């Protein structure tokens, strides 16, 4: 999901688990990550993982997150909405990143195996 309106699912992303994963899968993944990031090695990451796990393992807390995502605060204004987006840098998709490497100045066609072989033979 590349839509930043799914911010409520961030704890799942932090843990790298599917939102529909079973509790056993989530716990196994959490313990694996704790071994990878013990507090003495990376205290900030450890806390982030703990916090994510507490949310993900409690459907009521997650439900409250969903409600908070949808509900409007009294203080919300157009200005605050734009300011919030200012602090939210855009994501670049993998597709876009890969397209940065295009070189249409060279002939843009799919190289065939034969052409590639000829090139490789030439180099040899």
């Amino acid at each position, binding site marked *: *999901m*590349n*839509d*930043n*309106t*799914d911010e*409520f*699912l961030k704890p799942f992303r*932090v*843990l*790298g688990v599917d*939102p*529909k*994963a079973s509790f056993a899968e989530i716990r196994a993944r959490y313990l694996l990550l704790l071994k990878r990031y013990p507090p003495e090695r990376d205290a900030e990451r450890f806390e982030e993982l703990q916090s994510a796990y507490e949310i993900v393992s409690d*459907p*009521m807390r*997650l*439900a*409250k997150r*969903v*409600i908070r*995502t*949808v*509900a*409007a605060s009294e203080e*919300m*204004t*157009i200005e605050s*909405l*734009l300011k*919030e*987006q*200012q602090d*939210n*840098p*855009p*994501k*670049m*998709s*993998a*597709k*876009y*990143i*890969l*397209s*940065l*490497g*295009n*070189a*249409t*100045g*060279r*002939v*843009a*066609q*799919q*190289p065939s*195996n034969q*052409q*590639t072989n000829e090139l490789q033979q030439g180099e040899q």
Partner: protein
Amino acid sequence: MGQKSSNRAEKNRRRLEKRRREMDRSKKRQIQDSVVRPELRVVDRSPVAWYGEMLEDVAVFDDSIRQTLSDEMQSQAVLIRQALEEVCDRIESDAQENLASISRRSPYADWRLLIRGLAAWFNGDQAEAQSAWERLDPSRRPWRIAAALMLAKREDLTEIKLQGLDDVKRSEDAWVASADSELLATAKVTRQVYIERIALRAAHGLLRITPTDSMDHYDEDYIDDEPIEPEHFKFLLEYSVKYTPVEPELVRALQCGFIKLASNSDSPDFFELVASTLPGPVCDPRNKLIRFLAYFQIDLKACASSQREYVDEDLLNAKWCSDELRGALSSMLHCMLAAGEMSAFNEKAESFFERRFFSERDRAVMVANIKRHFENAIKVYPKNRDAYEGYEALIGLLLNFGSNSKKKVGELEKELAGIWRRRLECLPDDVEYRIKLVEHLLNHGDSDQAKKHVDILKGTRFENPLLDCINWRWHWLEIGRLSEKRTMVALAVPLLDELEKLWPKWLHRRWIPYLKAALKLRMGDETAFENIPEENKSKSALTAACMQLGAAQYLSLPAVQLKELREGVDVFLKDKKAISDEDLLSVANFFWDLTSAEIRYSAYRLHAPKFLKELNSRSILEKRLKSDHEHGYEVRNALLVMATDKIFTASSLLRAPRWMQQAAVAGNTTALATLLLAKVQQGWSSHEDMERAKLLKKEVANLSDPFYRFYYTRIIKQFEEAALSDPFSNFM
């Protein structure tokens, strides 16, 4: 004639010039109003292989080419693609870790470097990105990607011109030196879209729209500081069409934000228009949930309909929603509906006028509706604590509403116990509710059921010392219950022995001999109190008299015997001045035992405050405060029970002795705790009290006695809660 014609020519020239300027301005406006330039439509960009590009590089984005590679290369290509996507999505996964399996000699080594640098680039660490990318092969795609990104970060990007071959050697920046025109253009687009954020700049046009107050507001007197109006909505719709190809996430976020703003507006029609036009966020694609939230205070029917559609349709097939989450969300919404109806019930019940027209039938219908919501909330997600607490609050409301018959009270209390029971079935660790259930069962004579729960609690360790001795408490209550009937009192004997064994460490044992004697007296031994061994008797006659009376009342001795014992205490009441300081201090300590363990006998109120007031008039407390630790903390115990019984309060004002206030300033823990406890009883606080609370918090950390560590922490918490609810408090 010549002059006139030249003037006319001049006029025509000026007129033509003016028209040309107007046409130029019009063209410029058209450009600004036109659709965004094609190169900025980043969503349309795709990777395209160039002639002669390495197959391994193409395989990263072209599956048909990937399938022509060897198995090993295919798996590496897949790894690279996965890791790339996850870095872009900022997801933590194993894919990036698995890149370590790609050797330095592999064609994908360059891609591994690219991804490492990409993670750093996203985190704003240019130096790290540079370090990863400077080893890339300039003839390949990873290098081009890296170059575009590094160039995009340059603020002087628009000024960079392509350098000729002669300049290559002189150039300090390899990215610039090796860039071609296409790379430069790509970098410029990337900078405009992702770094300068032209889409966000354009969105600021929303702020330049002047409200015309064209909406029909629900409330005639509605005044809004910053209204949103149809003009804003029109702008947003046009903006969405133009900028979705440029920064789609921003557009979505603004749309979702706008729906929220519309839900806050005072026009239901406008909100409905917005909600039915714009798609909602991932968790509420058809805006059903936000409709529920917007309407739940004003139209419960519309709410219920939105709730059904959201839970039974939207959530059912949502990829992000597990069955548990769906249950939890549904349960929350049921609780909110219940809360809405309870609020309406409360309003009618509390209003002097409305109460008169609030018929029994209407009440019953409302209560049935509220219960139905709570029942539904529990059914769809039995672990929702809010549902049980809300249900409990409803029963509490009904217990306090109007005048209930004894039978009705009994029914409601039984219903309450049933709620606790159901809660404990799904949430067995909610100890507080198990304790409530135990007390209820004991109070209603169901000690067998109570014992089952006590046995469950036995293995639990509590920070709260009062909870830690729950088994002792069960025995205490059971002995009291058995003593009520002469025929059952013998059964209390072994329980009293057990009670002695379970006696809490923090509770003085002085009363035990008197309890045992009272039980014997209850069973017919008239000389039981006289036969208490000397070493077990209290040295204070006053204390002994109070302990005898207290024990006798607890064990339900007959009125005749109680009268005699009461007279034994009254003797002291008639001449309080004759009581020695030591006797008063001793009885105050006994009263503290009862208070701290929450086992006061019924006659306590009649004499205890009088003895404590007399003690307050003596100087022994001031004299012994500093050396209290040498005397078993008798002064502390006396002061705490005096504070609990409001001895230091008169006409809602604190009347603590000056010496105590001075001791508190000096940091004496007992004085601090006593004054704060007195304030908790009083109900309002001052700046001085807050300073005392802070001081006490520091001192509590150094206490070695776990009971007082807990007790003082509780006082601080009670004080802070009382201060927070005090509208005149300066508490922050």
